[in-house]
């Protein structure tokens, strides 16, 4: 027994063993790999479309409009139609642009957005990998998107694009800090970085001295608020959309993009909404659990959320997607309500409000963890 293992044993830390994914069928590596990729891609391409449609309709109704009504029943196929339109559009590249960088920048932004979905648990057993560093992985991979945006802004050979790209980069760096700090507090409380492990830890978290099960939303309401705001800023969603502020910068780093590349940037944004919401669901809202303390129908295992039959799995996925929809609805709601911040207000808000608050949150959680 090594020193580390002894230390682990002393600290009560168990060695990590990944929870198996339901998508692993038998011993076939390739079959399960293809299945996982298919599921991840399906989620990546379908759920953002639903979120986008929801945004159209919610924004419309909140602004006394109807939103899309023509494509499909109540405009439900509007984004599909948009996608077809984007594919048909001419792919313009400005003559002064840096061709290669301009061409690959949307891909650099989009690929990390896909990769995040690999570790997000959508239901009992419905995940690509239960990665030991899942939370860290999601935040780390997400930070690469910055590079794609900066590349696009610089390569467009357009001052609006450049300013937009710089703003985006500054904003993403500034808000990554509170995001990660809030995430660390959750990891601290759960004792693991694995997203599945965090869900499990929430199902077995009780108010000290009682039998009342709670999600991390309640002890970490401050952290949740910080994470939510920082996530909106990370995604450059209004009211934090300074990088594409259309009244000042035309369309920021996307100004010169058309057709499929533009669609890739947009898909990145909406997929980011979905993945950030899914992260919040996992970190604060108990993953696929119906309600705190309520065992999932058709499930057994630890905290009554694993070892599910078909009903439990279906219900779990539905609950997760429902929570994601709820959170994205909150984002859209904030978008229609608040005006855009100014660039200096944005930076000030991050460094002078969110970062100290997230440090405070972390300290509170650490002390509480030590005490109880």
């Amino acid at each position: 027994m090594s020193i580390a293992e002894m230390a682990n044993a002393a600290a009560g830390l168990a060695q990590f063993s990944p929870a198996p994914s339901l998508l692993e069928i038998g011993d076939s590596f390739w079959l399960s790999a293809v299945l996982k990729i298919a599921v991840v891609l399906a989620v990546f391409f379908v759920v953002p479309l639903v979120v986008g449609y929801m945004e159209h309709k919610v924004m419309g109704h909140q602004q006394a409009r109807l939103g899309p009504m023509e494509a499909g029943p109540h405009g439900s196929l509007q984004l599909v139609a948009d996608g077809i339109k984007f594919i048909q559009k001419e792919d313009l590249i400005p003559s002064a642009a840096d061709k290669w960088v301009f061409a690959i920048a949307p891909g650099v932004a989009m690929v990390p957005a896909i990769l995040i979905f690999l570790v997000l648990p959508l239901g009992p057993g419905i995940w690509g990998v239960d990665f030991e560093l899942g939370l860290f992985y999601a935040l780390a991979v997400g930070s690469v998107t910055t590079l794609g945006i900066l590349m696009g802004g610089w390569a467009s050979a357009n001052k609006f694009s450049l300013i937009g790209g710089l703003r985006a980069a500054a904003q993403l760096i500034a808000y990554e800090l509170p995001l990660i700090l809030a995430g660390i507090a959750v990891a601290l409380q759960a004792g693991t970085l694995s997203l599945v492990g965090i869900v499990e830890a929430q199902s077995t978290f009780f108010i000290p001295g009682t039998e009342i099960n709670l999600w991390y939303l309640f002890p970490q309401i401050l952290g949740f608020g910080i994470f939510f705001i920082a996530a909106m800023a990370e995604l450059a969603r209004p009211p934090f959309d300074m990088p594409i502020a259309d009244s000042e910068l035309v369309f920021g780093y996307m100004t010169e993009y058309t057709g499929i590349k533009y669609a890739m940037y947009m898909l990145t944004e909406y997929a980011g909404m979905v993945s950030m919401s899914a992260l919040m669901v996992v970190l604060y809202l108990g993953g696929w659990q119906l309600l705190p303390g309520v065992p999932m129908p058709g499930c057994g295992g630890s905290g009554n959320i694993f070892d599910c039959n078909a009903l439990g799995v279906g219900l779990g996925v539905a609950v997760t997607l429902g929570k994601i929809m709820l959170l994205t609805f909150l984002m859209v709601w904030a978008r229609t309500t608040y005006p855009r911040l100014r660039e200096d207000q944005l930076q000030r808000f991050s460094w002078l409000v969110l970062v100290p608050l997230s440090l405070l949150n972390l300290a509170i959680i650490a002390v509480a963890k030590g005490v109880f």
Partner: protein
Amino acid sequence: MATTSPPGVGLLKGLGVTIKQMFKPAVTQQYPHVKPDLPPRTRGVIALMDENCTVCMLCSRECPDWCIYIDSHKETVPPAKEGGRARTRNVLDRFAIDFALCMYCGICVEVCPFDALFWSPEFEYSEYDIDKLLHEKGKLREWMDTVPPPPALDEGADAPGEVATAIEKANQELEAAKAKAAEEARAKEQGEQAPAAGDAAAAAPAEPEVKAGEIDQETFDRLIAEGKSERIARSKAKAAYVKKEKQRLKEQAEQQAAAAPAAEEPKVEAGEIDQETFDQLIAEGKSERMARAKAKAAYVKKQKAKLRAEAEQAGGGDAVEAPAAEGSGEAAAGEAAPSAAPRKADIEVEGAGEIDQETYDALIASGKSERIARSKAKAAWVRKKKQEQMDAEGDA
């Protein structure tokens, strides 16, 4: 001092506003599926009633965008009367409005003196090609069908100017004829002749009015079935109804006439139309509006002729005189009337726009301007008339 609320309350209030708005009904109009509810006199597009156009070019000249194109040629019209002068008139060849240039100011509609241009509420005439927005008179004429009828007059309002004039004129002539008839009757009475026709005329039942606005359902259905537009069908059906009604009334009148041969129409009703003329014009493809106007004129003319004939009948052997009196024109009629009914003379004399030809010629010859000459001649005419009237009174 403004009341301060704890920070964040404003943010929540904002969220409340948007969420409340979300459950209120939207104000969107689903346009292509639901037609907009436009005000009745909406200015959508300019329609042309080409029969009314006299190629005066006023619209084209007033147009700030110069978007009206008019071509015409002159035609010589044979003299209306034997020995008269042949006249020329303009015939419209082309009337086009370029709606790509038009700014919908409506000056052309305002300026048209002959009611040839109208605002139509039609607005769905967009094109993919800007060239196709140049619309010729055929298309402009089609839009005429979408022009709503003029708004109804207020209760108790004066009749429109042209109608009032027509009525007045007809009444004048009627009065003149009556007066003449009465005079003749008096003359005859003096010669111990038959009783006055005038009384009989007064006693005769008036022709019942034909209600405008009713349509002949049969005709309407048939036309709709033929694919005519609803408006055209309606107008034709109206005409058909009027025709039928007139036919019926005529038969009735004939029956009455057979019963009372002396019956005649006491008064020329304004608004009545001559069905024959109307039908003929409609059959010629003239617009309903035009046909109606002409038919009205024709009716008035006919009525006059009828009255005259009756007067002649009543006058018996003096028939030779009457045409001569008519032939001397309206002045003669106007002159005759005051002698019979002096109380109306002042008004009629003042209201008339007749000029004294002698005075006019003299003034023109002495180098006065046409305008002055005309006004002085008018004054002279009135003076003369009054003189005559006074003389007549003196005679009486």
